[in-house]
């Protein structure tokens, strides 16, 4: 069965020039097991070979989350909509926080939209590995698959919330512009950040379950440290640079620019975000791969 012969080629990790003895054995795979050498042995190809498992883990997450809920995928928008409502009442109506000339609800929603995705992806990515402890203990697969699946699954929620956001925008008479297309690369940046956080937090959580309790509250602090309920312009000028070290600042400002279409993109803070995220992501990958060897032993 030549078909089947390619079936589990994804099991191989390192291909060598194996003795090509017999004709049928065209896709021989040789695996070498040894203690890992060096920090930079990332082996991202293994993740690619296991892409089907990645797909199924994402699919499982979505199925499980919505299959049993009466409202199903509607839950994806309940949370951000309520957040926007509360912010509009508390900050928009009572505290009269300025909103750069937009209706406060739209202004806040444009920040809540990327934030909800980011927070959910980072939370799940940080905690998900422990949730799949059984798999880690008994099955081999590139462990990176788990945080990857965890940050990919909430994209569906984002898509649903995004459609609702467009509706709200049109309701307020704001027309989308070509800048809307920039949501995709910005989403990529947000995903990278939540993945970077997952790669750092998930291994620590394997060892210290404290992360499980710390993450929700850290995320809440982080949210108020990002320009979601207030505009960047409210941050005092002399603190602005320091403030922009929060990578979510550039991201959220970018989203507002892309979604609402006014003003110009703050390339500086977005650039800072991208650089910080890139560094955190690469370092996170190395950290994760290094920690990975003991997952099965201590999880």
């Amino acid at each position, binding site marked *: 069965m030549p*078909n*089947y012969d*390619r*079936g*589990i*080629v*994804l*099991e*191989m*990790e390192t291909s060598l020039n*194996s*003795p090509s*003895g*017999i004709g049928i054995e065209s896709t*021989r*795979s*040789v*695996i*070498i*097991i*040894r*203690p*890992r050498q060096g920090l930079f042995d990332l082996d991202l190809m293994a993740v690619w070979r296991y892409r*089907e*498992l990645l*797909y*199924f883990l994402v*699919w*499982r997450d979505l*199925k*499980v989350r919505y*299959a*049993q809920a009466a409202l199903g995928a509607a839950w994806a928008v309940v949370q951000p909509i309520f957040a926007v409502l509360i912010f509009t009442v508390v900050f928009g109506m009572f505290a009269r926080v300025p909103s750069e000339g937009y209706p406060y609800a739209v202004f806040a929603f444009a920040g809540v939209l990327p934030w909800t995705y980011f927070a959910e992806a980072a939370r799940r990515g940080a905690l998900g590995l422990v949730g799949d402890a*059984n*798999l*880690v*203990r*008994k*099955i*081999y*697969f590139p462990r990176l698959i788990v945080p990857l699946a965890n940050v990919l699954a909430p994209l569906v929620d984002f898509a649903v919330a995004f459609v609702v956001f467009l509706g709200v925008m049109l309701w307020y008479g704001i027309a989308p512009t070509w800048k809307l297309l920039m949501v995709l690369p910005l989403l990529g940046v947000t995903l990278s950040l939540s993945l970077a956080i997952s790669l750092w937090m998930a291994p620590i959580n394997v*060892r*210290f*379950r*404290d992360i499980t309790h710390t993450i929700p509250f850290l995320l809440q602090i982080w949210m108020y440290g990002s320009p979601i309920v207030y505009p960047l312009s409210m941050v005092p000028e002399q603190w602005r640079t320091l403030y922009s070290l929060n990578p979510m600042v550039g991201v959220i400002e970018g989203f507002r620019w892309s979604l609402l279409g006014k003003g110009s993109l703050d390339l500086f803070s977005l650039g800072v975000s991208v650089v910080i995220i890139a560094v955190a992501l690469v370092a996170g990958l190395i950290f994760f791969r290094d920690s990975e*060897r*003991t997952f*099965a*032993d*201590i999880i």
Partner: protein
Amino acid sequence: MSRGPAIQAEGLGKRYVIPSGGGRHDSFRSALTTGVNSLFKRRTANSGKTDFWALRDTSFEIAHGENVGVIGLNGAGKSTLLKILSRITEPTTGRAVIDGRIGALLEVGTGFHIELTGRENIFLYGSILGMKREEVTRKFDAIVDFAGIPQHLDTPVKRYSSGMYVRLAFAVAAHLEPEILFLDEVLAVGDLGFQRKCIEFAKNLQKRDATILFVSHNMFSIKTMCDRVIYMRKGQIHYDGPVDAGIEIYEQDCRLGALTRPGDAKPADWPLFITGCDVFDDDGETKTIFDVGETMHIRLAYEVRKAVAHPNFMVSIVRSDSVTVCTYSTETDGVDLGTIPEDGVLQLDLPPLRLVAEMYAIKITVREKGFGPILCEQIGTTFHVRDALLDINFGVFHEPGEWRVGGTVSSARRLPGAAAKAATLTSTGT
């Protein structure tokens, strides 16, 4: 075939570091305090940590198509070896080269999600085991057929009975077609029917020239499946070679440390200990393999710490899947041992064996007069019953019956050796 070995391991070792002072650091606080403390204290070499080598310097070669059993007591390193070879954990030392597509079944059903339906789990579990979606789709009907639960396919797995759950999981696993298979003994926890399926699955793979590394405590399965055995002791290979000789060494070792105590019994409190458990045949020859119909004798030696009045000695025969198949008791056989003041020997002569071919263990329990509190409970020797025909497909035991065909009695198959002997039980105390 001019291929190299399927598995080649050189000096594999796995070290675990156990932080002393009770458990690992589960919380930040303890890690932080230790971290801070170590800043101020001079670091003594390896302070506060104990190394434990679960596996040490393990080297072997397994050729393509070979079926190797791995045996050893708990904690001997069998599972660690399997986990390293299936790449779940990394070795601390050494290396292994594996040539072929790996399938590893260390547990059946890992990764099943109880909220998903049977159909969904087939795909999920298939991909977890390393099958392509296309492959699962192709084999889907066969898997459902094998599991035998077509009407529950769209029911969430959480509503399944545990039997259905395992059957479905195994049906998926059985359609994995690896070239090299790692099988852990946890597979053998199911009922006998399930174990049988496991063995059939392995035999099917054998026919296709697959290489199998099989960890088990069940010598019977090892004997049926393997043509070579690796006996692990204290993290190292103690024996590597033909099955019969290996099992003999292993059972010899088990007997040395024999009479283990089950559960959390506190032997120090026991007034009485069983110090020996010999199994022999009519000729007085000690052995561990009996044919169906042979007569078995069990001689128990006991040590008395505190005089016990009218103890009830019970000898149970426990099948390898933990089913107690029968129990002999001095109480039910009307033997009163009186007060036993000192060490002695007690012999139980069994009627001709009617148990079907399997592996059995002897469990000895001593209770206070009648069926009172347990004074002592120990596991003695294990033995095998052998027969070409009578296996568990025939039930727990086998007895000849009498058949009347058209009014005339005509006997069918008789138990070998059984006819001559009356099935009586005698018990003698000393």
